[in-house]
């Protein structure tokens, strides 16, 4: 066992892990932050996307020890300080950007990374950025619409699906 320390959603945390412990397992099993979902465990679906030093990564495809000393952000850290939903989360609710909700943590984390990089993305840019986030329910339209709305763009011309 090796000790690993990192900052998760602004709090310093540490724990004893094996070499093979994935970042997703560390978050879910050691820290009980089960908002990060594991859909495929093969780096395909994006349900496990978190931020490491501000960048979106698939936490099922990274070792916990690789995140030693890093700043990690998960879905649990996304809400506003008063506990209300942040702009992206609220937009997902307003525009029905989720059905079963399994993909949603990864979608929201990817959307946050996109909007940081590109504050007013086009529809095509949003679809391209979400290439690695799979959703089995929504058909994507309302996810794309929610992200456009979260970026402050008018989505009234986009028909509800």
């Amino acid at each position, binding site marked *: 066992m090796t000790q690993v320390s990192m900052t998760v959603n602004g709090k310093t945390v540490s724990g004893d892990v*094996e*070499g*093979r412990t994935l970042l997703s397992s560390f978050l879910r099993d050691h820290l009980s932050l089960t908002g990060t979902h594991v859909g495929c465990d093969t780096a395909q679906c994006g349900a496990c996307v978190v931020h*490491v030093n501000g*960048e*979106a990564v698939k936490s099922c*495809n990274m070792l916990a020890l690789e995140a030693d000393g890093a700043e990690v952000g998960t879905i649990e850290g996304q809400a506003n300080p008063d506990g209300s939903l942040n702009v992206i989360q609220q937009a997902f609710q307003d525009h029905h950007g989720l059905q079963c909700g399994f993909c949603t943590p990864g979608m929201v984390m*990817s959307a946050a990374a996109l909007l940081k990089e590109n504050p007013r993305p086009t529809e095509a840019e949003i679809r391209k950025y979400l*290439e*690695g986030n799979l959703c089995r329910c929504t058909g994507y339209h309302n996810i794309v619409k929610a992200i456009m709305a979260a970026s402050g763009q008018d989505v009234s011309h986009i028909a509800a699906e």
Partner: protein
Amino acid sequence: MYNFEFKSPSTIADAVAALAGEDAQALGGGQTLIPTMKQRLAAPATLVRLGGIPELKGVCVEDDGSIAIGAATTHATVAREVADKYPALADLAGHIGDPAVRNRGTIGGSLANNDPAACYPAAVLGSGAMVVTNSRQIAADDFFQGMFTTALDEGEIITSVRFPVPQAASYQKFLQPASRFALVGVFLARFADGVRVAVTGASEEGVFRWAEAEQALNKEFRPDALMDLRVNPMNMIGDLHGSKEYRAHLVGVMTRRAVQACI
């Protein structure tokens, strides 16, 4: 995944020393190796992380104008930092997998792995780049030795890759949408002394140069110059995503598109 000892050296020398141990393996971005270890197709006793070595990271322009990219530089960094220096290379890096994969995966890992459908091998072979390791320099033409096989020795690590910058270049990727790798990808680079055409995704032998196309394009740099050329479907990959004949056909189509993009 079997357990292993994790080491994170901060210099190339320490990494090379750690890799001399029995069953030690380098860890780049882990985007290929971690899934492989989960499937127990790889089970190193020691994993030596290269991501903590500053000398392996970053992009710089050499005195002769070539671009040197550290082996542990991520696809996302290459896409960003070479955009104005070598647009075709930046475009290739920016279309590998998806954003989260590009934030972790590295050029060194991609080349060492030499997946027959990977993108970077086409850029390196198509550009005639030089692969620099901890002990020597290997020309692209000697580096790739068939599917998942390279000239690297046991314990040898790629430290950087040096790309000469062509007059014009284009990477044309026919996407395999499920894996997001190339079903067929063609990297074409036009230098003052000739054209190089490298094809990935298509051949059972891994990335290869299409010599007949290069000759034809050296005579006449137009898509039509390739109209009568065919690659032999015999050596092509045939699987549920595309038959040998289909891939052979795509090689021609993607090469012509690359020429068009360079005109």
